[in-house]
């Protein structure tokens, strides 16, 4: 096979490269979809991302990572974290004085339990799940850091979360 000129050769190489690249990306995607993501446990405090960041901007400190939050007018809104998370605000994990994960969803609990992520607002928890991408975590199970002895040595105290059941 002979090429009429160099530009034909370049075009051929470029097409070949793109085909290879797309192919490898597709293969990676298929592999990513078929492989089980690595399940990890992360620890921290469940916070309302919006309130936490607003509070940081307003006060230059992480003052809105508890249950009660300071409003723009300086008033304190009692139970703000639970209220906002119940309302469907984005959720995040706070630990070591930083937002360490943004949750891919703010799920309701599944199964017979009425537990959902909002029930753990401002509470220290352990979350089982996987990293969807840098900083974005898909929570699958949650439990409080402090557990009754029956829960810790029985069921383990984990509650299932399901991103398919969102607010």
């Amino acid at each position, binding site marked *: 096979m002979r090429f009429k000129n160099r530009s034909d050769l370049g075009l051929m190489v470029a097409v070949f490269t793109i085909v290879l690249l797309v192919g490898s990306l597709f293969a990676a995607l298929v592999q990513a979809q078929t492989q089980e993501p690595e399940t990890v446990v992360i620890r921290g405090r469940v916070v309302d991302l919006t309130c936490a960041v607003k509070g940081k901007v307003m006060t230059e400190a992480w003052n809105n990572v508890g249950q009660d939050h300071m409003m723009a007018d300086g008033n304190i809104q009692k139970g703000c974290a*639970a209220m906002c998370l119940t309302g469907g605000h984005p959720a995040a994990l706070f630990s070591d004085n930083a937002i360490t994960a943004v949750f891919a969803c703010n799920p309701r609990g599944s199964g017979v339990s009425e537990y959902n992520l909002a029930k753990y607002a401002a509470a*220290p928890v352990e979350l089982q799940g996987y990293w969807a991408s840098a900083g974005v975590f898909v929570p699958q199970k949650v439990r409080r850091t*402090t557990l*009754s002895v029956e829960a810790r040595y029985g069921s383990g105290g984990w509650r299932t979360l399901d991103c398919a059941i969102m607010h």
Partner: protein
Amino acid sequence: MKKMEGLFLVLMAISLVLSGCNRTRGDDSSGSSLLQTMAFNEAILVGNPQGHPADPFLATSGAGEVFVSWTEESSGEEGRDGFIAKVKGGGKQLAEIRQMNQEPISGHGGENLAKFALAPDGGVAAIWSAVSHVHHAGTLRAVYGEGSGPFTPEETLNDDQGVTNHGFTGIATGPDGRIYASWLDGRNDEEAAEVFMAVSEDGGKSFGKNFQISTFACPCCRPTIEFLDGGETMIVAHRRFATSSGYIVSDNVRNHQLIRSTDGGKTFSDPVLISDDGWVTYGCPHAGIALDVDSQDMIHAVWWTGGRTPDEAGIYYTYSEDGGRSFAPRQLIVQAPHDTVLHTHITVDTNDTLYASWINIEENRPQIFLAHRSAVTEQWSPIHRVSDGAWNTVYPVVTVDEENLYVAWTERKGEDSQVRLRTAPLVGN
């Protein structure tokens, strides 16, 4: 003659040794409770093993008879059945086993286990949470069994008819024969439990109107009722809760506090802090405080706390010598994990020796431990492990009669459970 001298020297030596032994025993007897170890009998299994028994409760009648209650998987589709029996033969056998319920009992058990009190006439009043299909909501049921006869059908103890949280009970018989039931109640604010009470004037056959005796209660920590001054004073202890729902402040500190009534529960004092542990937690820790009162009206209390820092976590003891108006600084009995909520139960014998049982973690398994405190030396005995370590063991309960200490607990392995009961002669007996 030399033989006589030799015999004399041998006798002298034996005499000296024996006198030394006697002196040692005499010294020990002054602190006998400190050094005397408990000699436990072999444990017996309580209930039908096929029913996976759980959640025992113990009480001793005024006549000195020991009763044990427990639950088993219900013969129906859901919940559990409740049973009660007399403990005979110094804890070696059970007699007069009776079923207490007709409707299923909630299977949650644990801190919310079915409990009973014994009336002076031998009657048994029992209370428990009924099965509920609404999360964190349910009714309290009460039954009465006369002598060794059958139990009455259940009646609802809470009089609000509401679908909200009623549970985590305490029940006790006053010296006047009235039976007092107390529980955590969410009728006024389902996010923040209050302590409610009802009184039976007829030895447990029926209970009167419900009334609130305290607010700001930790929502899953049982209240405990005891009596002083021959029944003139009633004390109720519960774990304080601070919720952030706007109900009260949001510090989430879970200290135990005590309230007193000198008018049969009509009014109560302001709460007195039992110990400023400063333990902060979220959710429902399921850990009330264990209280008992000795013959000198000294209030004893033993509890677990997670502490302000992990190294403070442990099983603690304190006492009050002024009827619960103030408490001595807490004393650490033993350190424990800070992130696993543990349970305690205590009883006092007629010599005012205090017996405390609790769960702690040993070899990565919850086990039952026990120690006693002498009223004479005010010292704690060495700690004795009561369970054998083969299963996970939870929720110990204790009582005494004139001769023995009785300890019962639940053991769990996977889905299986069983109840064990052990006895030991009281120290000094």
